[in-house]
């Protein structure tokens, strides 16, 4: 089992519904977010191009946060999801410094918090909250080892990229381009 997510940068309108859904579902403290929208505009006026990305933890196969964690609080669970166990986390910040995507943040309660791909929802057979609410249906989630999963199908059909693969993390959040 290998969970992964794909975000369609051509369909995404940047409404931030995924951000709000995550904050509500995971009781993310006010002022913080586990997922976020990035808008990149480039080109020379008037020929401009815009890419909108719904970003979150990349649940890397070679996750530097898991490697750098001194207590084993950052770990892989089933399907390659990267999580933090709050009762093992000392709040040293090593994982935060080690993440090239800056996907983690210090929770006001002291431990480090991040996207879990809504592991608690997946267990019940549901999609992560961000995927479930997306009004343009631009987020795809599923098991890469299952050829019939939403994410496998869309990655077969569409051209895609990952963010900073040169950081050597083998990220599992794909962007359809």
């Amino acid at each position: 089992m290998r969970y992964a997510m794909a975000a369609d940068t051509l369909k995404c309108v940047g409404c931030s519904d995924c951000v709000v859904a995550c904050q509500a579902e995971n009781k993310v403290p006010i002022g913080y977010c586990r997922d976020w929208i990035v808008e990149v505009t480039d080109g020379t006026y008037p020929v401009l191009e815009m890419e909108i990305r719904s970003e979150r933890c990349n649940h890397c196969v070679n996750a530097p946060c898991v490697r750098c964690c001194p207590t084993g609080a950052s770990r892989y669970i089933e399907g390659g999801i990267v999580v933090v166990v709050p009762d093992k986390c000392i709040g040293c910040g090593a994982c935060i410094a080690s993440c090239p995507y800056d996907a983690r943040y210090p929770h006001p309660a002291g431990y480090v918090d991040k996207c879990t791909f809504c592991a608690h929802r997946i267990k019940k057979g549901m999609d992560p909250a961000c995927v479930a609410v997306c009004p343009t249906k631009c987020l795809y989630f599923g098991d890469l080892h299952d050829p019939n999963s939403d994410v496998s199908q869309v990655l077969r059909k569409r051209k895609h990229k990952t963010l900073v693969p040169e950081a050597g993390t083998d990220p599992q959040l794909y962007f359809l381009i």
Partner: protein
Amino acid sequence: MKEEIIVSGRMNSMIDPTLHIWHWQIPLYLFLGGMAAGILCFAALYYLRGREKEYLTAVRVAPFLAPILLVIGLLALFADLRHRMYFWQLYANIRMQSPMSWGAWTLMVITPVSFIWSALHIRDIFPEWNWRYKWLFNLEVFFNRHKTALAWIMLIFGLILGIYTGILLSAFNARPLWNTSILGPLFLASGLSAGAATIIFLSKDPAERKQFAKIDLAIIGIELFLIIHMFMGYLASSQVQIEAARMFLGGEYTASFWIFVVILGLIIPALLEILELRKYHIPAVVSPLLVIFGSFMLRFIIVYAGQMSRYLY
């Protein structure tokens, strides 16, 4: 003109707009740990070579500072934690892939050893010292009998302590400035140099001062080489590392790094030490204090600048 405008909706505290998760506590600890490592290594080295009588300050006096520096450093580390009541989890796990984990275990060994070493030499500072309890006397006898083993532990774990502070940062490939294997040797050299400077500062024996001035001079040479080598490495590497180097080559850390670390912390003390070795009269405290200051600034600048270097937006 081709432009790229990036707008992010993320504004997490201590992460955005640039990472600032580590504040003064971490560089302070890296400095104190490195200096303690330097002091303990020299003490162990000269003890093992049987030169205790000639290098009294190095073997017997300076090590008194080590446990103090280590305890202050540990308190700084503890202050940096955000989930403090769980700090014991560090000692419930050994994770070989995490330099922070083996650093924590190294501290667990070297801190008690530094206390024992100081206790064995306490009569050099307080000649009338009395342990009061018999079991403490017995412990002193026991450790005196195994002093060579103690010195070996001090030397080996001192070197690990000195080098791990750099490896700790270089393990973070997300921060291109830190992601160079030169950082381990550089921090070790800087710690040894600060240790030698402490011994020069404390010693009243001209022969000992001269010996450590020579050692310090050699280490400063090595540090200058490592710094040049480090920047050559950045500039010959990927774009993110070139950008990391630019922070020091015209960017915002240029003045502070080259003035405080390289000129005041390395070149001027080296020149003063050369003049002193050539029998010019230089106030003895100036060059060791500059070396210690440079070592301190190196940690601060590297820790702060490293957090500003990154891959994405």
